[in-house]
């Protein structure tokens, strides 16, 4: 228990330092990209530009701006977005994240469950028809970019067949197409990973042993084989979770889903500094926590990995 606590504290400290490094690097990058949030094709003049810069503290020396950013992060208040001054960055994130999260969690559940099942089936039917079929589809799923799949799905299922609505985010029916478009890639990756590790595990001695003991095939697969076969899947889950749950720019744009994916891309194009900082901090914190959880799950799945050992290194 003491080890565990020490390990967690240590990890927390490392997490905070990592976050600080990310924030600082982002800030340095941010002030070094040319351009300003107030550049536009529309008419303007110097006074107006000066007022705008003063309003957003952009006329302050960089160290002051940096301190202001650090302050905003510590107090969890990033101030208003420059491009949507109606809204604070907190508004944007707290409104967009639940939607991205909802889309993401459905996607992940679908991808993980079907991916693992397909992987197992393919492994059990190794070199059989089902194996080739599912893996063939999986290769397609990995190779077709999700935005192309999304457009295809809309054209076929929404425009031609009129089964599902085209875009926007209103009812459960609106979720089907984006979830399918988004889940296919990860599903294929998980299926292939599960299959290959499953094949490896199935030849291990302890599986033969389990079979020899007379355990039912189900028990052998789900209790003994799958547990070890899932290790690589868990490894990619951390990044997958963070990536999908915080929104995906292209899919959200195609389906007009008001998630937070767009802010990652648009804030940079628009030089919306508070939003850049807000999204970066949010995403990095989320990713770091996810990776931490993955490490903990490792420990549960594989008793050989002892947390305090890892921490002690």
């Amino acid at each position: 228990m003491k080890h565990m606590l020490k390990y967690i504290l240590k990890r927390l400290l490392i997490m905070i330092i990592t976050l600080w490094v990310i924030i600082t690097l982002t800030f340095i990058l941010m002030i070094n990209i040319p351009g300003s949030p107030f550049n536009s094709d529309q008419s303007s003049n110097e006074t107006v530009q000066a007022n705008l810069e003063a309003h957003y503290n952009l006329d302050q020396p960089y160290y002051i701006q940096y301190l202001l950013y650090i302050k905003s992060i510590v107090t969890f208040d990033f101030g208003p977005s420059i491009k949507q001054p109606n809204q604070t960055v907190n508004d944007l994130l707290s409104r967009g994240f639940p939607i991205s999260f909802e889309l993401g969690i459905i996607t992940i559940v679908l991808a993980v469950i079907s991916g693992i099942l397909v992987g197992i089936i393919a492994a059990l039917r190794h070199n059989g028809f089902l194996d080739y079929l599912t893996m063939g589809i999986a290769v397609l799923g990995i190779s077709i970019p999700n935005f192309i799949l999304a457009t295809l799905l809309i054209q076929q299922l929404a425009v031609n067949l009129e089964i599902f609505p085209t875009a926007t985010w209103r009812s459960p029916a609106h979720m089907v197409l984006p979830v399918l478009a988004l889940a296919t890639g990860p599903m294929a990756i998980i299926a292939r990973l599960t299959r290959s590790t499953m094949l490896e595990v199935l030849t291990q001695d302890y599986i033969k042993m389990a079979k020899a003991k007379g355990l039912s095939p189900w028990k052998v697969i789900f209790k003994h084989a799958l547990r070890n076969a899932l290790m690589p899947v868990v490894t990619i889950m951390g990044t997958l979770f963070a990536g999908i749950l915080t929104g995906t720019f292209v899919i959200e744009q195609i389906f007009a889903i008001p998630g937070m994916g767009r802010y990652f891309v648009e804030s940079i194009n628009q030089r919306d500094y508070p939003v850049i900082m807000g999204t970066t901090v949010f995403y990095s914190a989320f990713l770091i926590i996810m990776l931490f959880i993955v490490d903990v799950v490792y420990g549960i799945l594989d008793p050989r990995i002892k947390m305090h050992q890892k921490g002690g290194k």
Partner: protein
Amino acid sequence: MKERKLLWILLVMLTALFLAACTANEDAGEPQEGTDTEEGNGEDGEDGEAAEETPDLDGKTLYINNGQEPASFDPSIGFDQVSWDPLNNLMEGLTRLDENSVAAEGVAESWDISEDGLTYTFHLREDAKWSNGDPVVAEDFVFAWKHMLDPETASQAAFLAYYIEGGEEYNSGEGSADDVNVTAVDDKTLEVVLIQPTGFFLDLLTNPAFFPINHQVAEETPDWYAEADTFVANGPFMLESWEHDSEMIFAKNPEYWDADAVNLDYVHFSMVNNTNSQYQMFQTGELDTASIPPEMSDELIDGDDVFIGESGGLEFYRFNLTEEPFQNKKIRQAFSYAINRDDIAEYVVKQGVEPAYGFVSPGFTAPDGKDFREENGDLLSFDPELGKQLLEEGMQEEGYDELPPVVLTYSTSDVNQAVAETMQNMLSENLGIDVTLENQEWNVFSEAQQNLELQFSRSSFLNDYADPVNFLESFTTNSYMNRTGFESAEYDELIQKSKSETDEEQRYEYMYEAERMLAEEMIAMPIRYYNVVVLEADGVEGILRHPVGYFDLKYADKAE
């Protein structure tokens, strides 16, 4: 064992979530399959399947797309099309553009202009009201305009109000709010004093930046504009609901003085920012209007449901006069003669755009009733022979044996790239000049252009108000919009006169002359005019789309 339990719980939870998602989807999917939505032009759909797809509004509803979330509904702050379009339907200024795109009576039912053209006295309608029932009073305008000019507000539109006495001083921090010469004489009389006669002042007032703000509401709720609950409108529609980043619903405003003229009960705004998706929504009847995706232009542009209108704006290329070889006028002219604008408009940009042989786009009516563009005629032409000759002369003047290398820069986009490549070809073919192409991310590009770091670069201009001088004044010495290094006292004077001359005909003469001078000096090379291309579903009519300004749904209708 504990761990295994945890795993099982996790697994069960995931499965439950998955099943929930599945069943939800199936439930939602099924009833739709049964409904026949052939052709689905939105109307039949509304009772059946569209209820699922689009919020069911009881009444005549127009479904349109705003592209994205408006920057702000604070009239002083929202300085872009996605804010202006909705705002123009929620609110109304002293003047409002009529069917002929002329500034006509809005909240003001009449006005007097003093002899010297400096003092405007507006008489507000007795029955002009806010959606909460308050009367629209002169103080609302005073409040709004001073709010716009307050340096603390940091309004991007503030420079538009510099025509008002004391406006620039207040905005730049040198004066105070009290010095801004706009006064509420009484509740229904507003007096404004300008720094110089400004022939287009009434046009200027149609810009949302000059809309009134209900000062009582604003004093109580400073961020009244941020949510539907607190928003007060004085236009044909009011803000019924606003789900940020997602949708807005406008309802007919019963308090509007001209409510009888309004046909629609509701307007539903989606925020779909993908040209393909919004077109697909138009196909399924989820939207009543849409734009044409660029790659489908050839296929759709000639359709019956396409509205093509003028839009005050110009795509052009700027020469940097501070960099070789463009200090030489003849070389600049040679470049312009080598460009075949017809081909660029028809085969590269497509979308029904018009090539530009002048600077001021069509759609500005001169006092004699003729169009500015027609009156001043074609100022440029495609003439490779003349181009070659001018290039030779220019190179001789500068003593060049070989033309210094030219880099053509544009901001990254497919269409910009296509135009740039075409120009590269034309320059090579017609003048034997090999220009290098370079593209930059928009914001980097914009900054470099502003700092005169680019040699020959793409630009675009969209009018803020409906007067030719809006574009022409960009090129005065020291103008923030100049970005060419061009300096000419003569041109500055012409523009000054174009802004302050009280005789409208004479004022237009000055502008014609200024435009001719621009063409002669060739500091900027026009390519094509902007236009508006919109698909409109059957039965949709009466949407006013002005060359300069924002669409107006006041008279819009939709056949049931």
